[in-house]
């Protein structure tokens, strides 16, 4: 049974214009997205900036309300939870944020930051709260003495460790990682990624890992979903996606990964044109304006996400394979 099931999820943001602030159109941030996440796996979500991956992450944690569709977490519709159920949901689903500088309250010590969740969920026991936090800090590779420090006393990587400690406290099941390493140095990125992998193994966590960095996603994910303009265009096993990618957009994305070997030459597919406005997405296939294989049908009909390789669970939304 999948831990998370997303069915036809849509999230549109109204755009207000004019003196009377009437809604004049929508930003189609997440447009009819369906996928499942299995317990214990890592699902990578990749796409260029503005494709709706962060919005999707926020919908999965019920930070944003949906426009349409539904999200089931352990067979519970997360958008129709009672306040009490929502609180339990908040214990089980956590989030790691992109910016380690903004995501910690600068006026609170590490202890106060980590303590908050215990206070909210009344799991607060004055005798052992310090021990609990010490264990948490050790798990994420920080020192006991860091408890009384303020965020500004840490480096970016250490701050992100605090963010991770906050997310893993009180044993969640699913963690949505919203670009957790994109604000960090490359050398620190790998350390944080390995920490996440280690924690996943220890605590049997499930990750939804959002990133624009394909190399990072490949390192951590079991399955990968590629998003373009609010839609999932390809969803497959990580290996299958890298070796046998089908969608032209995935092809272009993968060709952009730098290879750390100057001798190797490879063809780089440069996408023509700009990313179209997400307020006014192209008709038909959303990628047709930049696709080098586009044909007439691409301009008229929107492809649906269909299974291409049943064995590998490889899905693709492209007329070439329809």
């Amino acid at each position, binding site marked *: 049974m999948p831990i998370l099931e997303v069915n036809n999820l849509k999230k549109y943001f109204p755009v207000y214009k004019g003196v009377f602030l009437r809604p004049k159109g929508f930003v189609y941030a997440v447009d009819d997205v369906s996928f499942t996440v299995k317990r214990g796996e890592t699902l990578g979500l990749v796409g260029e900036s503005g494709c709706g991956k962060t919005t999707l992450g926020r919908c999965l*944690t019920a*930070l944003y309300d949906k426009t349409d569709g539904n999200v089931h977490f352990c067979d519970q519709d997360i958008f129709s939870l009672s306040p009490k159920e*929502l*609180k339990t949901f*908040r*214990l089980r*689903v*956590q*989030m790691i*944020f*992109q*910016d380690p500088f*903004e*995501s*910690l*309250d600068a*006026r609170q*010590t590490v202890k*106060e930051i980590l303590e*908050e*969740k215990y206070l*909210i*969920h009344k799991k607060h026991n004055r005798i052992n709260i310090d021990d609990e936090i010490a264990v948490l800090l050790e798990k994420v590779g920080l020192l006991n003495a860091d408890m*009384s420090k*303020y965020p500004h006393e840490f480096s970016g990587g250490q701050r992100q460790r605090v*963010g991770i400690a*906050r997310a893993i406290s009180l044993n969640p099941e699913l963690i949505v990682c919203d670009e957790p390493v994109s604000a960090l140095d490359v050398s620190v990125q790998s350390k944080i990624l390995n920490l996440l992998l280690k924690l996943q193994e220890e605590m049997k966590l499930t990750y939804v890992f959002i990133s624009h960095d394909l190399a990072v996603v490949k390192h951590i994910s079991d399955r990968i979903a590629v998003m373009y303009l609010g839609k999932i265009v390809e969803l497959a096993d990580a290996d299958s996606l890298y070796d046998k990618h089908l969608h032209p957009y995935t092809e272009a994305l993968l060709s952009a990964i730098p290879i750390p070997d100057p001798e190797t030459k490879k063809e780089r597919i440069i996408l023509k044109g700009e990313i179209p406005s997400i307020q006014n997405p192209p008709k038909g296939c959303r990628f047709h304006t930049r696709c080098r294989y586009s044909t007439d049908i691409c301009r008229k009909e929107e492809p649906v996400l269909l299974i291409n390789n049943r064995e590998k669970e490889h899905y693709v939304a492209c007329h070439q394979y329809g």
Partner: protein
Amino acid sequence: MSKNHYLARFQKGWQIFILNPLGKTGIILLIVFMLMAASSFFIPLLDPMYDPMTGIDPLIKESTGPSFHHWLGTDNVGRDLFAQLMEGAKVAFIVGLASAFISIVLGTTIGMISGYAGGITDRILMRFADIIMIMPSLVVLLILASLFGQFNIWIIVFIIAIMRWPAVSRVIRSQALSLKSRPFIEASKVAGASDIRIIFRHIMPNVLPLAFLYMTFRVTSAILVEAALSFLGFGDPSQVSWGMMLQWVWKSGHMFQAPYWLIPPGICISLLTLSFYLLGRAMDEVLDPRLRKEEERK
């Protein structure tokens, strides 16, 4: 540890504050006025004739100039002007601080709720604030006073506070608006925090410095409004204040005969409001590093 941090931050802020010529002048003036206000508690104890309201020098039947017994002279019924001036300082502090405090509490709370809640709540609260903001507070007070007769000093304090919260809540609201979409607020939402918790635990500590800054400016305007109201004869007649002293000079026809009576309260009103204004300006520079740098570059 946490205390040390706040202490260190306070000390750093204080350093900037006290090195600033505006802040230094402001704080010196403020201390002088605080001493004046404090002395008002002791002067009547020396001799009942120094009571600012009821003490009358039995030997004096008309307004006299400065003398050994009456440093600033007396008013037309023989009350000591120095004692009245000291009492006026106390009243100015009470009026200024109390009404500033009430308007800050109201303005901050409403601003935070409005900014954080957004939507229809925000619109209703802010339109309400706009309506109050455009009303000229002195005129409203005058109309109310002429309708209901003379007010007790606390009612005046309260009305000034009611008239003056909207500007504060506007500023606090815009702060809350920018704070509420910051990731650390979202992080605490993901942790399951209630709205009340987010407002008071995460938003309030971040807007409080700004609220205090606004409080100093509110003090200034409250003192001025009270003085104007008293001078126009709508003050609390049972309470000496600087505005009241000016009203008495005017009413008894000593406007141009007794400069020792007219000038001191006028100067005191100007200097006390100046002192709070300077404090606010200096605090502004502590809170806003951009202003500070400009100052340092000079």
